[in-house]
């Protein structure tokens, strides 16, 4: 077998191997600011004659006034209702006419809009998007049906889905004071009361060139983009001061919380625990990277600790894993989860999870595990280069949460520098039950012993 392998091997790439330092975050990224404060990032990708054009506003659900939950997301929907210059669905019709795609998204920290279009239409998109920063026009005739659309969206994403409902309850329990405890889509009774005026107030307060980042990835050069931006985005006046994003902070968390959601439709129980952790933006140097590696060692892939122990060796779970997503302004979460095999209780599975976590806290991770996790994470940065939209999202979400282009570019190197000691340190520091919520998804509320 090996002889055959040698005879017909693959050609190695030239200089840019995945392990080559600095090569992993893609091509030459340009980053500049217009006089009105709008930051623009250009990520060249010349493989196809296509561009991804995104605008990221530094405002999300965590910036809503209490009582108005869902407003950031509702405004995102209303941003498609037209401006004075481009009334009604003119923007969307333009995109459809050129075969483009568009969509938008809202999280706790940011609101984004994007189009993917043939490259020659980029400037048109920039002009339309620039117009939309301050030109939105809303009437009750369009606002009211859209509120119903959002309420249907809440049904689809949350109300119809017991797992999503548990997740909302867990966030509400995890955050004692920070607005990350509110669902992005909003609490239903508050969504129902949102009005046109609410949306316009929020829009005027947060939508301004100095509170946004534009990311353009694709078949363009920074010089072209600069020239086009001067004729489009640069003409948008500053509307509000870019205020520092100060949200209420979490107090010292002292008590582990548990949340149980029972629904007769639950046919597969599960347990999930989430720990409050620092984000990439708030972590000390190296800490967020160590959490990335820790989550991988714990719960990514068939050889991760949780899967190997609970699913394969002990055979008490059907699935098990872990996650950490550090891209956030204030806090992030490290989550672990498992679904028990029929006949196994949630308590048994949770004890299994705790045994795995305690072992990592006490013994740390092996070099071998560390290498495997780092290889995977660094490779993700190379795989991302195959998808300009992924690259654009990567830069946009980082910049909208207080990071810099340099931080994104240096991420693979920072992962490479993570030591086994740092991973154990992160486990010790952050896998602390007192700063956690454990969620149980069950069919009915009954004594723990009889759950399965």
């Amino acid at each position, binding site marked *: 077998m090996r002889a*055959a392998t040698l005879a*017909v*091997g*693959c*050609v190695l790439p030239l200089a*840019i*191997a*995945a392990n080559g330092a600095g090569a992993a975050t893609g091509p030459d990224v340009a980053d500049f600011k217009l006089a009105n404060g709008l930051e623009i990032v250009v990520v060249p990708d010349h493989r*196809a*004659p*296509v561009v991804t054009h995104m605008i990221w506003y530094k405002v999300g659900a*965590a910036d809503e006034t209490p009582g108005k939950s869902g407003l950031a*997301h509702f405004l995102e929907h209303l941003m*498609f209702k037209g401006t004075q210059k481009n009334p009604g*669905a003119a923007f969307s019709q333009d995109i*459809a*006419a050129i*075969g*483009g795609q*568009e*969509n*938008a998204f*809202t*999280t706790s920290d940011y609101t984004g809009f994007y189009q993917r279009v*043939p490259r020659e239409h980029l400037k048109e998109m920039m002009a339309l998007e620039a117009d939309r920063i301050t030109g939105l026009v809303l009437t009750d005739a369009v606002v*009211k*049906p859209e509120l*119903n*659309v*959002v309420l*249907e969206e809440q*049904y*689809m994403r949350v*109300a*119809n889905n017991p797992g999503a409902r548990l997740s909302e309850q867990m*966030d509400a329990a995890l955050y004692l004071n920070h607005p990350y405890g509110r669902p*992005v889509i909003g609490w239903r009774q508050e969504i129902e009361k949102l009005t046109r005026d609410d949306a316009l107030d929020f829009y005027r307060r947060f939508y301004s060139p100095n509170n946004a980042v534009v990311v353009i990835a694709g078949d363009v050069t920074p010089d072209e983009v600069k020239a086009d931006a001067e004729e489009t985005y640069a003409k948008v006046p500053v509307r509000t001061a870019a205020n520092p994003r100060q949200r209420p902070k979490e107090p010292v968390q002292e008590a582990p919380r548990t949340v149980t959601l029972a629904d*007769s*439709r639950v046919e*597969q129980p599960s347990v999930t625990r989430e720990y409050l952790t620092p984000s990439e933006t708030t972590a000390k140097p190296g800490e967020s990277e160590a959490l990335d590696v820790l989550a991988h060692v714990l719960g990514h892939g*068939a*050889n991760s600790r949780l899967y190997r122990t609970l*699913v*394969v060796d002990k*055979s008490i779970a*059907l*699935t098990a894993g872990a996650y950490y*997503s550090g891209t*956030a*302004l*204030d806090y*992030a979460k490290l989550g672990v989860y498992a679904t028990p*095999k029929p006949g196994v209780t949630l308590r048994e599975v949770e004890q299994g999870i705790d045994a795995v976590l305690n072992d990592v806290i006490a013994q740390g991770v092996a070099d071998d595990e560390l290498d*495997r996790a780092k*290889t995977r994470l660094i*490779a993700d940065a*190379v795989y991302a*280069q*195959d998808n300009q*939209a992924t690259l654009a999202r990567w830069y946009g979400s980082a910049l909208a949460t207080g990071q810099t282009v340099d931080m994104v570019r240096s991420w693979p190197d920072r992962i490479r520098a993570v030591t086994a000691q740092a991973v154990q340190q992160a486990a010790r520091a952050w896998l602390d039950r007192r700063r956690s919520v454990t969620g149980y998804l069950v069919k009915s509320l009954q004594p723990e012993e009889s759950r399965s």
Partner: protein
Amino acid sequence: MNAFTLTSSTLRHLAYALALPLLVTAFAAPAGATTIERVVSPGGIEVWLVHEPAVPLIAMDFAFIGGAVQDPPGKAGTANLMASLLDEGAGDLDSKAFSDRLERRAIEMNFSAERDHIRGSLRTLSENCDEAFDLLRLAVTSPRFDASDVELNRAQILSVLRRQTTSPSDIASLRWWQTAFEGHPYGRPVNGTPETLQAITVDDLKTYAHKVLARANLKVSVVGDIDAETLKPLLDRVFGALPKEPDLAPVDNVTPQGLGRRIDVSLDVPQTVVDFGGPGIARKDPDFMAAYIVNHILGGGASDSRLYQEVREKRGLVYSVSDSLVWLDHAAVMIGGTATRADRTNETVDLIQREIHRLAENGPTEEELIEAKNYLNSSFALNLDTSSKIASLLVQLQLDGLGSDYFVKRPEMIAAVTLDDAKRVAKRLLDNGLLVTVVGRPQGVAASTAPPTAH
């Protein structure tokens, strides 16, 4: 941070991805943008290659004609279980050793079963290409099907099936297919049922693999940092040991049944899920492109489609509504879906029926036709901006029996559709009656939450 990302027009319809070949949005790339090479290995394996060295990775996609239609009688789910086990250990490597080898080099290998095909994909950094192709060879030519892995995967699929029993979208879809294709393999769930899944033995899996994983029914594409001369011998290394001919049971051609029926399933959920559909038009039918355009106008996923405008934008009845043409090897269907509050379900279903009827009767307008053609012509490159998407399309074109010059021909085929064609085909496509499945609270039963103010 709240990791919950919301989009304003996500299509629930993606749930049909299993059955839905990539909706072809051509590739008539500006001159020289992308070249497809048809490469044949010394052992006779053909691959469509796009050599793209700009990013140091390689994406390979492939399909074996076969799929869930080849499940033995009473053993629905065999293809799916078999596919789930191909990357769970092969040759001398048990599942732990095999996954360890993949993870050490960050190699991604996936297999899945569709109604008509077993699909596979491989993604690797080009520096790990040797290892990746070696592991793929083991996976397709000597899977182990160790008892412990079989039982674990079976248990995982059973868990999915249990969940589906109370998921409105799964129920709506399963009932639709079951009713439309009763008595035909297309009416069986690809994942199987708890009973059929329990009946599958290791021998069944081995027999299935032996019958379906062969060279004559294999379609392969490769995109990325590898050239034809390097690729040729690797193809033989990976697939050369497979039997030449598959041993496939004949499958009847079939058309969907139950048109004009509405099936209501009672489930206590706040939002009612609706699937609707009828006969489509075969991929090889001369009217296919006209039907594709008509369907785009009706509900093809763009925000200017009639269904999106009438049902969502004007009335706020739903968050998403769309439909697609799905072409299978032995049937063609048009199928769509939406979801709305129980007390607005009838209004929504009626409105969709009315819009479909209106398009069938009058056809599209000249303006709609022009816009749809423009859209379909220029959106092609947008869907082909990643190696994986290109690789997937190249396999689909081969399965559909289209030439590698399809990218050049496609704009001509679109241009050739006249308004008369569109009107005639709208009638042909949309005047057959619909099979509708509705899953939610029965009408007249009050919702447990107070209904929001409407209009």
